[in-house]
C-alpha cells in the first residue's frame, strides 16, 4: 500500500489526553471523536486536515491513557498513517488493532517538518520526504502483527481463527 499526503507535525510525548480529551469520551462514535481531535494542542487540525494526510510525532507518541478513542479519532479525521520517533505501547497496539498503520522511524523523524509532503510505501517499508528529497527505510512489522493487519484488524483476525 502506498500513502501520499501532507504532514501534520507534533513534538515529543503527545499524550492521548491531547489527542482526544476525556471530556469527549461519553461517546465512541468515530466522527464525533474526530470533531475534537488534537484541539487542545492544535485548534487548526480539525478544520485543516484532509483525507490522506499523515501525522508525524517525536518520542513516545500516544503516551498516557489506554483510550482507543485516540487512534480512532485520528483515523476518522482522514489521517492514513502516523510516523514517530517512537510510540507508547498501548497506543501502538490499539492502532494496529483498528488498522491504522504506524511507522517507528527513530530520530530520523527530525527531518520531517509540518507541511512537508511525504510518500509511504508500507510494503517496502520506505518513507520518502518529497519536500526534502530524503528517503528512509524502516523495519517491517513482525509477522504476528502483519497477520492482524492483513486480516483487517484484530476482530477479523479472531473471527478468522474460529473458522
Amino acid at each position: 500500500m502506498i500513502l501520499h499526503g501532507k504532514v501534520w507535525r507534533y513534538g515529543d510525548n503527545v499524550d492521548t489526553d491531547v489527542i482526544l480529551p476525556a471530556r469527549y469520551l461519553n461517546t465512541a462514535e468515530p466522527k464525533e471523536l474526530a470533531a475534537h481531535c488534537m484541539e487542545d494542542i492544535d485548534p487548526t487540525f480539525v478544520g485543516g486536515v484532509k483525507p490522506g494526510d499523515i501525522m508525524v510525532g517525536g518520542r513516545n507518541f500516544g503516551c498516557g491513557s489506554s483510550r482507543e478513542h485516540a487512534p480512532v479519532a485520528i483515523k476518522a479525521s482522514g489521517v492514513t498513517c502516523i510516523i514517530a520517533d517512537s510510540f507508547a505501547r498501548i497506543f501502538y497496539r490499539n492502532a494496529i488493532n483498528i488498522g491504522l498503520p504506524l511507522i517507528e522511524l527513530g530520530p530520523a523523524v527530525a527531518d520531517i517538518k509540518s507541511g512537508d509532503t511525504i510518500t509511504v510505501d508500507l510494503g517496502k517499508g520506505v518513507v520518502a520526504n518529497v519536500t526534502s528529497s530524503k528517503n528512509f527505510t524502516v523495519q517491517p512489522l513482525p509477522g504476528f502483527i502483519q497477520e492482524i493487519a492483513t486480516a483487517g484488524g484484530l476482530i477479523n483476525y479472531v473471527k478468522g481463527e474460529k473458522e
Partner: protein
Amino acid sequence: MGMTMTEKILARHAGLERVVPRQLIKAKLDLILVNDITGAPAIKEFEKIGKPVFDKDKIVMVPDHFVPNKDIKSAEQAKIMKDFARKRKITHYFEVGRMGIEHVLLPEVGLVAPGELIIGADSHTCTYGAVGAFATGVGHTDAGAAMAAGETWFKVPSSIKVELTGKLPRWVGGKDVILTLIGMIGVDGARYQSLEFCGEGVAELTMADRLTIANMAVEAGAKNGIFPTDAITQAYLAPRVKRAFSPVSADPDAEYERTVAIDLSKLTPVVALPFLPENVKPVAEVKATPIDQVIIGSCTNGRIEDLALAAEILAGHEIHPAVRTIIIPGSQAVYLEAMEKGYVATFIKAGAVVSTPTCGPCCGGHMGILAAGERAVSTTNRNFRGRMGHVDSEVYLAGPAVAAASAIKGRIAAPWEVTS
C-alpha cells in the same frame, strides 16, 4: 539463564517452559476488566465476533469514570455495559453503591492474585502488579476480542530491575517513590518494558504504597510493574482471595536490561510539575506556588491509608479560603471505613467536600474541572495539558500528605509546615 517474574507468568500462561524478551506469544487470561468508558465499545467489538463470553466469572465490569452518570451520553454508555452484564450473567459487575474506582476495588475484593495474568481496558490496570500479578492496560478492541477468546497476544517485555533499599522517612510515601523513579528515568524510560521491584526495601512498603507505585508504572511507559509476593502480600490477600494461586519469584540469574537503585531513606516529598509526570521537584523547591483546588483520591491514592494521612494533617485545621478541596474515597468500603474512623468528619470540619467514589476529576470528566488559569495539587497520576479541565489549567501531582498540607496553606506546602 533464569527468568524474571514477568517472564515466568507469561511463560506459564502461554504453556511454555520459558520465554525471552521480544518473543511474541499467545497467553491465556485470568481476568479482563472494562469500565464505563471502554465497556460499551469493547462490547460492540465483542458482538462482531459472534461468540459467547469465554468465562462469565473472568470478566469484570466497573462503571467508575463518569458515574454517577454525569450526562445523558454517559448514562447511555453505562447502560450498554449494565444490560450486557445482566444478559450475559457476568458475575463481577459492580453497580453504583457497590462499585469503587476499578484499581482500588479489584485488589480490595480479591479479584487479583499473585501469578495471575490480567488485562484491562484502562492504562492503570498495571496496579495489580503490586500483588505479584502480571497486569497491563489495553484498548477496547483487545478487551472485546479477549472476552470471546480468553487469550491475547503479547510481546514479552525486557525488564528493568528497580532495587529498593532502606526505609521511608516520615511523610514520604509510595507516591514519592514512583514520582522519584519517573523523574529519574523519564516518561518513556521504561517504554515497552517491565519494572520489576525488588530488594530489602520492598519489605518496608505497605500494600497501599506498592499499589500506588505499580499504578504509575505506565507513567514511565512501562508495560507492567511488579512486586515480589512476601509476608505483607500474603497478609493482605488472606482475607480476600479464597482461590488457589501460585506466586512467582525472579531467578537469581534472571536478565535485566538495567538496574535502577533507590535508597528509600534518602527520599523526600516531591511534586511533579505540569505538563509531564517526569517534571519532579522536591516540595521545598516549589512552595511559593498558589493553588485553587486540591484533589485527594483516585486509583493512585484513594485507599484508606491515603485518607488516614490526609485526615492526620487536616485535623484541627481549616482549609485555605481560596481552595476547593475534594476528597474521593476509592471504594464504598474505603468510604465506610473513613466514616467509622472519623476521617470524613475531619474533612468536612476542615472545609472539604467528600465525594462518592469516581475517577471524575482525574481525567477532566466531572466533579472538579479546572477553569483557565486555575491550578490544582492532586494525588492523581497525570498532569498533561488540559488533563483536569481547561487547556490553560495546571495540575501538580503529589502524595496525600503534600496535597493536604497544600489545602491548608493555599499554596504548595510540605507536611511539616502544618504539623508539629
